């Protein structure tokens, strides 16, 4: 497992944005009332914010960025790197980060590229932006992470549709000689690449008419080959085993005192999986916030979304020790230990 530290980069602020439209799982018509109640109990997801057809991940990230830049009082021309982490880009090409650079009115001197990671993407994104800034001396950076998974699931797939919500986020990073190091542990296991996949539409299996034919895979699961496939059992098995390993790996690599950490923000996969991970790590429940109930699994946005909705008051105007951990599609995982100082957390934005 790759463990490394990045010095002199501070996280200044975080903003998250969700669509105003809410879908309640109790109204999910493909399951009986008994089944959906059990689903809600197990996954912890009662409702999800879902975009209308004309809204993309980039729109959610755009709103979060504008408000965050404004709140921090940053001059846009001084932002030198923008990274967009998402699996629901505007187009196959060009990169959405280029579209966002222009739309946000950032300088043409700004580096911009996409990282198509999902649940581990926020932690990976932090490592990429922070390490590039550290290596090159770029002073201000934006990490935009989010997904609109509702656009790629089949509404007739009980294993995905009632689980995923839509959200976007923006995180501002800045060079700061007094910032404590960010400590990372990242890893990959591509042997599980089929566990979360959209089979068709890429170069391996280009879209054909067949790709769009919906078929019944199992009871309650009807989808086509351009829809998201989630092998729930395999992902569960992976999550409960790998998430504790990366957290323990990070703690061991840097001799951290697990009891000194104020909050552990995990990717919001599903409640049963998350509770199991927390139990294995023997972490106090009070140190582990959840946002699953109101937002579901929002892919790479779950960590910033949980920070904004659950920890805002706790992070503002003080120092905090956080451990953030993402794990999922790839399969891929990452955890980061970061000490925040007067972190700016914007109230949740809804559009």
């Amino acid at each position, binding site marked *: 497992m790759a463990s490394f530290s990045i010095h002199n980069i501070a996280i200044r602020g975080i903003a998250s944005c969700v669509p105003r439209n809410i879908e309640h799982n109790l109204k999910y018509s493909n399951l009986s009332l008994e089944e959906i109640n059990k689903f809600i109990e197990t996954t912890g997801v009662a409702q999800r914010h879902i975009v209308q057809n004309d809204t993309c991940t980039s729109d959610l990230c755009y709103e979060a960025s504008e408000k965050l830049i404004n709140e921090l009082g940053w001059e846009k021309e001084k932002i030198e790197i923008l990274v967009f982490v998402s699996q629901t880009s505007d187009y196959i090409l060009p990169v959405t980060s280029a579209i966002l650079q222009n739309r946000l009115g950032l300088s043409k001197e700004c580096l911009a590229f996409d990282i198509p990671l999902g649940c581990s993407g926020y932690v990976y994104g932090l490592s990429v932006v922070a390490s590039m800034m550290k290596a090159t001396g770029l002073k201000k950076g934006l990490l935009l992470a989010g997904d609109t998974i509702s656009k790629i699931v089949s509404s007739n797939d009980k294993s995905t549709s009632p689980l995923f919500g839509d959200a976007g986020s923006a995180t501002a990073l800045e060079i700061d000689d007094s910032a404590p190091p960010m400590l990372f542990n990242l890893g990959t296991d591509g042997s599980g690449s089929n566990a979360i996949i959209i089979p068709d539409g890429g170069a391996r299996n280009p879209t054909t008419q067949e790709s769009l034919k919906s078929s019944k895979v199992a009871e309650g699961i009807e989808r086509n080959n351009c829809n998201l496939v989630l092998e729930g059992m395999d992902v569960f098995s*992976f999550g409960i085993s790998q998430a504790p390993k990366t957290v323990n790996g990070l703690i061991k690599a840097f001799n951290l005192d697990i009891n000194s950490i104020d909050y552990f923000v995990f990717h919001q996969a599903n409640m049963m999986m998350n509770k199991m991970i927390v139990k294995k790590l023997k972490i106090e429940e009070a140190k582990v916030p959840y946002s699953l109930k109101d937002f579901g699994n929002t892919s790479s946005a779950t960590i910033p979304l949980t920070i904004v909705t659950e920890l805002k008051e706790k992070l503002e105007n003080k120092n905090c020790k956080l451990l953030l951990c993402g794990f999922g599609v790839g399969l891929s995982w990452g955890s980061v230990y970061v000490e925040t100082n007067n972190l700016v957390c914007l109230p949740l934005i809804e559009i």
Partner: protein
Amino acid sequence: MTVTDFISKLDVVFETTDLSTITPETSFKKLDEWDSMLALSLIALADEEYQVRLTGEDIRNSSTIEDLYNKIKAKK
């Protein structure tokens, strides 16, 4: 580890099924309360009690309690 030992641990998985009715020959997927959420509980049990990573394929390819037990034992 024995199959009897495995069955005795299943009380954390099954809620409405009477544990005394479960034998190595029981077809667990035919039990009234069986569903995909219970499958997650089985995977969690294998991880917690035996430090074994059961996959979806392991569950799909098992029909009896003994099949499941053998999958776990093979991975131990």
